[in-house]
């Protein structure tokens, strides 16, 4: 037993190929047999992944889902930001530059609206929960952008660690919600063309949520949504601790 687990640890990424291919095979089977292809196989596979992540978190108390279990540590490499961004870049092969240029203005607008609206959404929820100081409100609002913007902002303006944890949690929930929700709401918001996908990516901003959600909806849309979403976290880290924090201090002066 020990020999096997040692071997799997050492060959983590190859073992991950094996496990992921099995997950996808089972998910395709479930998609065809149980849902008559109504729920795409990739959506089921992603939900499988999230369940594994939950299991890993409960079993180890760590932060990296299933990758915290040693024999599954290869998931952390394959699912880490390097391979993710490398694969996202490759999807641009199928994208049309003309479409991107035409949607450019709406894409930029969606980025700014996405950051400001998410921020306001987070701040309003925090207000209802009794937070009234500009630092906590800004940090939670930033967390409502993405789980990276939250802690970066909190660290910059000196938020307390429990507020920081809260802002990370809000960002993670957003990512998971967008991942699961996208294929189900796509129909109702007209998310079936590159233009809307670009706007969607800019508004939601969570690269992991948008890229996984669009993959489950229609893989052709991935490059367009990912293209705008990839600017979001950087812009969020720019605006939340500066302009938006100054505005918050102005409104909630004590």
């Amino acid at each position: 037993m020990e020999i096997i687990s040692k071997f799997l640890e050492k060959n983590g990424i190859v073992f991950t190929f094996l496990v992921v291919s099995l997950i996808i095979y089972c998910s395709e089977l479930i998609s065809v047999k149980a849902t008559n292809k109504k729920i795409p196989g990739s959506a089921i596979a992603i939900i499988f992944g999230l369940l594994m992540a939950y299991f890993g978190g409960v079993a180890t108390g760590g932060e990296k889902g299933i990758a915290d279990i040693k024999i599954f540590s290869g998931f952390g490499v394959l699912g880490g930001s390097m391979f993710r961004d490398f694969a996202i870049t490759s999807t641009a092969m199928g994208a049309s530059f003309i479409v991107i240029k035409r949607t450019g203005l709406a894409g930029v607008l969606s980025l700014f609206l996405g950051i400001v609206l998410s921020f306001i959404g987070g701040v309003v929820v925090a207000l209802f929960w009794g937070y009234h100081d500009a630092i906590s409100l800004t940090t939670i609002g930033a967390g409502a952008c993405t789980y990276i913007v939250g802690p970066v902002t909190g660290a910059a303006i000196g938020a307390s660690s429990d507020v920081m944890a809260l802002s990370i949690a809000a960002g993670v929930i957003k990512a998971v919600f967008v991942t699961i929700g996208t294929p189900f709401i796509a129909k109702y918001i007209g998310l079936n063309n590159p233009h809307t996908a670009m706007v969607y990516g800019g508004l939601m901003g969570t690269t992991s949520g948008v890229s996984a959600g669009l993959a489950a909806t229609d893989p052709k849309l991935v490059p367009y949504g990912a293209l705008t979403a990839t600017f979001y976290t950087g812009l969020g880290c720019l605006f939340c601790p500066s302009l938006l924090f100054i505005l918050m201090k102005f409104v909630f002066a004590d």
Partner: protein
Amino acid sequence: MIIYGVGILAFCYVVGQIFGEFIGKLIGVDANVGGVGFAMILLILINDWLKKKNYLDTSTEKGILFWSQMYIPIVVAMSATQNVKVAVSSGFMAILAGIVPVLICIAVIPFLAKISKSSQID
């Protein structure tokens, strides 16, 4: 050769990401600003140029297409490494702070889609 395709992709990735890091530094942010986005645009442009010059054979193309086919498996691995436990156990406020912004943003999609479609005509 397949490795040429992988190499082209890696070139775009490295150049785009470094560019994103520099932009982050330039505007004083501790994050990569649009690195992947720049990499994608670079790949589209290089791909176009190579096609026009007829430098791109199918096996080179396969080196890039392989990775775009690996995209969903990578996303599955990524979702298996999310901090789902925190998301589930973080209490009602964090859940609302994560979901409410998404709902607000969804509400403005029709408005923005209209802008993107009207700019299509001209």
